[in-house]
């Protein structure tokens, strides 16, 4: 673990990313303390400018933009993490089965994966949410459905190469069950690339979530950064701050997660680094 941290810390931008991410996490955790009550509540005069009574001003209805950003951090991180978890689970399951069994199962599952990769993901997500009606659940499902194919292809490649390794062969000859070999023996050995991919998927998931919320497809009862930007769009000419600050929050969070992801890549795959 010490070696891991040492390798991670050698990448300075990854440490910077981790620091930004820590601040966002802290903000999400402290949101109910910093801004108690609903972020949809009216806080003051509509369209008050930033850096006065309110740090980031108020929106068209007089809602506090800073409160929205703090509460929105919870939404973005939560949806990003959960949808990624679902996508990784789905991807590892499908890719793992394809790579482990090979043959026709592999052909069939990989054709399916390719077809899902062909479908334009953001449009697919829009259609899915429109069909299920906007809510946190439908957003998570939509993001997971469009994100799993990448993980599946990765997992398939890993399982396929592990399948022929001696330790797996010996497990087979010991009479171990397929499921046990797949999840207790092979999976722990190919976790590194999966973790790296998953960390980058969280960033993509946050971008998709904010895009959906911006278009008005987010959960109407949950505050989110994309919703805030979308709500400020109509008064762009007179109140620039409503759109600007939540957007910066998205940008910084996604950037931080990408940096951490690259740092993880360097730290978990030291062979690639030295090449």
């Amino acid at each position, binding site marked *: 673990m010490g070696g891991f941290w040492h390798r991670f810390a050698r990448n300075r931008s990854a440490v910077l990313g981790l620091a930004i991410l820590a601040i966002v996490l802290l903000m999400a955790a402290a949101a109910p303390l910093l801004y108690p009550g609903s972020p949809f509540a009216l806080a003051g005069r509509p369209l008050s400018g930033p850096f006065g009574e309110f740090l980031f001003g108020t929106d068209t209805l007089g809602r506090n933009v800073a409160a929205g950003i703090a509460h929105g951090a919870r939404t973005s991180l939560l949806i990003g993490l959960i949808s990624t978890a679902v996508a990784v689970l789905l991807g590892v399951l499908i890719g793992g089965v394809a790579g482990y069994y090979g043959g026709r199962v592999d052909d069939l599952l990989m054709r399916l994966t390719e077809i899902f990769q062909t479908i334009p993901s953001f449009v697919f997500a829009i259609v899915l949410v429109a069909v299920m009606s906007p809510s946190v659940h439908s957003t998570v499902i939509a993001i997971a459905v469009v994100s799993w194919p990448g993980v599946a292809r990765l997992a398939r490649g890993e399982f396929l190469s592990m399948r022929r390794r001696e330790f797996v062969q010996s497990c087979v000859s010991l009479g171990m069950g397929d499921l046990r070999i797949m999840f207790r023996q092979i999976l722990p050995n190919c976790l590194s690339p999966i973790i790296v991919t998953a960390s980058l998927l969280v960033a993509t998931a946050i971008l998709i979530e904010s895009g959906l919320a911006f278009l008005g497809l987010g959960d109407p009862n949950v505050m989110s950064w*994309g919703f805030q930007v979308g709500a400020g769009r109509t008064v762009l000419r007179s109140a620039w701050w409503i759109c600007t600050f939540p957007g910066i929050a*998205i940008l910084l969070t996604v950037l931080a997660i*990408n940096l951490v992801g690259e740092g993880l890549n360097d730290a978990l795959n030291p062979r690639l680094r030295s090449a």
Partner: protein
Amino acid sequence: MPGVSGTGCSTQDFDVRRLRFIARRLLQAVPTILLIVVINFLLLHLAPGDAADVLAGEAGSATPEYMAALRARFGLDQPLYVQLFVYLKNILSLDLGYSFRHNQPVLTLILDRLGPTLLLMATTLVLSVSIGVLLGLLAATGLRTWRDNIISVLALVSYATPLFWLGLMLIIIFSIQLDWLPTSGMETIGAFYEGWDRVADIARHLVLPAVTLSLFYLAVYTRLMRAAMLEQAGMDYVTTARAKGLTERRITFGHVLRNALLPVITVAGIQTGGLIGGSVVVETIFGWPGLGLLAFQSLFARDLNLLFGIFFLSACLVVVVNVIVDLIYALLDPRIEIA
């Protein structure tokens, strides 16, 4: 041709094999499109309310008998597999259904809006690939200098920027503050320009949407090009070229560049689907009258026939682009097995 071996067969032989490759590639696209149609159909059925509900809602009220008559007329009272069969038959004869909101067939609506979207996508593709390749090249040739650092940081930041926010910020800067470019639409309303004036007018309207959509992909191609150049620089053929006494400039432009371009072309094909998704957001922000804006409008009018028509067509567009990319790839790199 550096780093590439000959195919060792006559040209005529090669042409036949190429035709066969095209035919096989097109055949492979068929099950993909069929499955997309099935997904489309299933989702349409998952959606709450059918066409009869929508029409009855439009009319304000309806008797159960009228609803039943409507369902019979649209075939909604048939078993699911019959409906699927009818749906498949309709789509394969390019009948994408009817938009009750616009009182027009979906296909007509889509074809009307296809032009502006293709213009936006083509401009974006050219902008992002050419500038991305250039920046990647600059970064890779000046490895770990200030040039590389600045380009890499820019690529990282634009890779993390949400499209819709970037578009709004560009509007604040270039339309509201500087008043250089129009905020929305594709042409100045009521100006009725003709000839080159019209082209110039459309070009002025195109700048902001195209730049917004390009920036994310520009970051993708810059990073990819940089990585591909670095990967190629370690290959044996580069060492050979250096041993022959070629200058670094000739090695870079004559040998490394064309090989490093291959992954960029592959990814440009893969990103087409993303471009369509991005154009929904960008067209909505800039009021660009293309498919994306139509999708956004159909979303809020609950015009599902239209929304699914656009979804189906955009998936088909990706399939077509992928086939084209495979062909370009086979032309550029004769090592690719096309037999």
